């Protein structure tokens, strides 16, 4: 073999290696099984910018002061669900999703648990698309029907985007629990946000164990008479 042919062969090898690396790099950020692979995030931003301009509606921010009145310690008013992330945000943490999502583009479909966020399983009925709720570029925000951002603290507006009648009922105070004063001239009325009862990825209200049946007449009730409670017979 001559020197020239050796050089051509190594060049080809190097070129092949580079091509492989490039391909690998592309594959990292792409859905390997996605037949109809979505365009790159940059392309999406361009598309969003080109959607029709919808009128912006003024929306009040969803203000929820803390629940409960002093003197009601015997009544358990904790919300049914502990909200993790957005409560941290309200408490002042910088919960900045863009830290990771600067690099990693979002997937469109949900069909398998993700590598990160393994605790999230999406069972939201017909809503199978992550980006129906999450903003595609600014992962610290949610997305409105016209593509604009909904801030994290205004998460109820996101739910109201699709669940209009329920949101209307919630605004009126009849969906979900109100606490405090029915007569707002005498004191504050508070209500819970959607995510304090419903896990946004699995919104169906979780069944909970019931409190035990009340103790009925020990003499004449059928069968279930002697119900013991741990706090019985204490001074």
């Amino acid at each position: 073999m001559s020197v020239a042919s050796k050089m051509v062969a190594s060049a080809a090898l190097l070129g092949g290696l580079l091509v492989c690396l490039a391909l690998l790099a592309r594959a990292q950020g792409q859905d390997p099984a996605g037949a109809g692979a979505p365009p790159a995030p940059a392309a999406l931003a361009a598309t969003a910018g080109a959607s029709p301009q919808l009128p912006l509606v003024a929306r009040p921010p969803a203000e929820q002061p803390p629940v409960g009145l002093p003197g009601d310690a015997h009544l358990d008013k904790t919300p049914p669900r502990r909200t993790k992330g957005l409560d941290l945000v309200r408490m002042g943490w910088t919960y900045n999703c863009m830290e990771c999502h600067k690099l990693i583009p979002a997937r469109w479909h949900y069909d398998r648990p993700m590598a990160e966020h393994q605790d999230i399983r999406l069972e939201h009925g017909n809503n199978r698309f992550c980006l129906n709720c999450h903003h595609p570029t600014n992962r610290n925000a949610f997305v409105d029907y016209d593509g604009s951002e909904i801030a994290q603290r205004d998460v109820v507006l996101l739910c109201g985007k699709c669940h209009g009648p329920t949101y209307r009922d919630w605004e009126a105070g009849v969906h979900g629990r109100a606490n405090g004063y029915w007569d707002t001239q005498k004191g504050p009325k508070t209500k819970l946000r959607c995510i304090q009862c419903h896990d946004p990825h699995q919104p169906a209200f979780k069944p909970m164990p019931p409190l035990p049946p009340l103790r009925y007449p020990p003499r004449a009730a059928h069968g279930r008479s002697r119900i013991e409670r741990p706090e019985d017979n204490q001074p």
Partner: protein
Amino acid sequence: MNENPHNSVSPKTIEQVYQPVTRRTFLKGTAAAMAGLAGLVAALKPLLALERGEMTLDDLLQKHYRELKPEELQRILRELEARCAREHGVQPVIRDLKPLPGVEFGYALNLTRCIGCRKCAHACLQENNQSRSSADDIEMSYIRVLELKKGAINLEESDLYYNPQTVPQKDKYYMPVQCHQCRQAPCTKVCPVQATWQEADGIVVVDYNWCIGCRYCMAACPYDARRFNYRKPNLQSARINPNQSYLSNRIRPKGVVEKCTFCLHRTRDGKYPACLEVCPTGARVFGNLLDPDSEISYILKNKRVYILKEDVGTLPRFYYFFDQ
């Protein structure tokens, strides 16, 4: 009149009755009287166990709540507070709250959202100072949560004692029932002493110091909403709710009837009742029916509400509705 010859009696038969009392008769009579008295005293011995101060002359002479002068009522409230402090070691604050002007209460319950967790029933026990400290006590919460099969309202097939691992169960729905504060309440009609009546804001209340305990109102109620204190309420001091009021959750004596008062010690202050505050799904809606912007007015305007046992004609203030 007795013409029959079989009868040949005359005053001679009972001659002794007409004679003056002999010493013998007198002694016999005294001995018999002593024996009788001893028997009577033995029979009444358990009354010694009656607590001091359980039945005072002041209690007996107390007038009906609606006829009490303000200073008399205040004296009674202080006396009741002192009694509670003596018996339980907890000094409560017993207020007398009058109905708010321009307010008529209404309550609605969303049967789609109720999951049967019974938090309302247990909160009611805690808020209203009901008897519950030993295994022998019944927990007579004013709220009964019924588990019904989907498809019909057949109260006879309802289950009060359901206790599955989780609620709601798939083919069941849950209906809490409490006093409906009926506009045409059968209970207020039948009380012989008018110890129970409907106030201006719609709440049917009981004056526990006036009730004679005949339990006619309990027989009359179509919703099984009233409870009777067959014994003196048994409470642990740590679990007494000190925010009390005369007509609602002060600690009742034995022998009187009690019922849900829509937590009037809270609601007449503008707060929500305890059952609503703890409901995890927000199935309960409460407010002022006369206010067109209240939540309860919203429900009555926009949801398909119905009432329980409409055929009995009680016109209750408690509405049930389904959301979807």
